């Protein structure tokens, strides 16, 4: 990319420029297995067209500490979609949708730990693709809610059966959603905030 000309770099659209007061940010992470609707959810609630940030992971050779050999290692680029909601003139909520290979994102110390909480999207046709990520969130003590994305051809299961299959305690909220609908995705985020509020009240 040519960084010399300002024309080559497209910044935010005029309507997306934040006010100078917008200096406080919080983040929420949207996780779930392959193709469950994470990108769709980020896009449906974001006030900006979703953007993509990426990171390069290198396959490290254990016990070898020789940076000159980095070229020979397998580098993997992982990309993550994100969107933004202005909560107030000061406060901005960022939403990150981790793509397919979540395991990489758990290497990113702070991505989950710094988040207020997480939304786990599940597809009832393939519940098992979300097992791994739920385990990782539990291990790290990241509070989360589960949103069951309602695909038209998905079999209907009672919520309690899904809770049993996911082995979730009663207090973890589970809601149905349609990730394509802004109001529905917004309600999922609202459920997460209510849950975090309850947890905060319990600990206070």
């Amino acid at each position, binding site marked *: 990319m040519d960084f010399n000309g300002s024309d080559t770099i497209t910044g935010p659209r005029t309507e997306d420029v934040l006010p100078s007061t917008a*200096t406080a940010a919080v983040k929420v992470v949207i996780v779930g297995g392959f193709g469950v609707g994470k990108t769709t959810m980020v896009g449906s609630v974001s006030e900006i067209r979703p953007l993509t940030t990426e990171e390069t992971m290198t396959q490290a050779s254990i016990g070898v500490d020789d940076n000159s050999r980095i070229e020979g290692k397998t580098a993997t680029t992982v990309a993550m979609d994100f969107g933004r909601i202005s909560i107030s003139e000061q406060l901005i909520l960022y939403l990150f949708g981790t793509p397919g290979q979540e395991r990489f994102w758990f290497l990113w110390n702070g991505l989950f730990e710094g988040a207020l909480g997480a939304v786990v999207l599940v597809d009832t046709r393939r519940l098992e693709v979300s097992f791994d990520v739920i385990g990782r969130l539990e291990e790290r003590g990241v509070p989360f809610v589960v949103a069951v994305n309602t695909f038209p051809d998905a079999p209907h299961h009672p919520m309690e059966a899904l809770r049993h299959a996911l082995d979730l305690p009663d207090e973890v909220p589970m809601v149905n959603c349609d990730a394509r609908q802004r109001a529905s995705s917004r309600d999922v985020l609202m459920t997460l905030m209510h849950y975090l509020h309850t947890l905060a009240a319990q600990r206070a």
Partner: protein
Amino acid sequence: MKHQPRRERREKLPDPPPGSGPFSEPVPEPGSEKGDPERLYVITGGPDGGDRAALDLVTMVVACSTPSPTVQPEQAAILRLCRAPLSVAEISAYLRLPFSVVTSLLTDLLATELVESRAPIVRAVLPDRSLLEAVMHGLQRL
């Protein structure tokens, strides 16, 4: 209902050592490599691998000055983008540069006071209820 597989709880893995910042690379524990292939990956990092400022994806950055002819083109691009506050993630997206490359560029700009940054509000041990109420209020208006 069709037979659903049931999630099996995993055994708790040891947490990363306390104080490991956002960019500390995971240190593989001896013998832990086998069952946990992702521990074989590390974030590649910026060009130098030197010390980088502790920047989060949602650390907000704002320029303190307009680009002078002496800064690198990439850094000038950041200064132009950050006339209004912008998160590190957005800078990475607009410049199409990996996150760790952006943090390394920002480290220099912060050291020379060409930009200011504001750390995000992270989930605390005791979450701030008024913050959560503000978020709920904002979402309600969406």
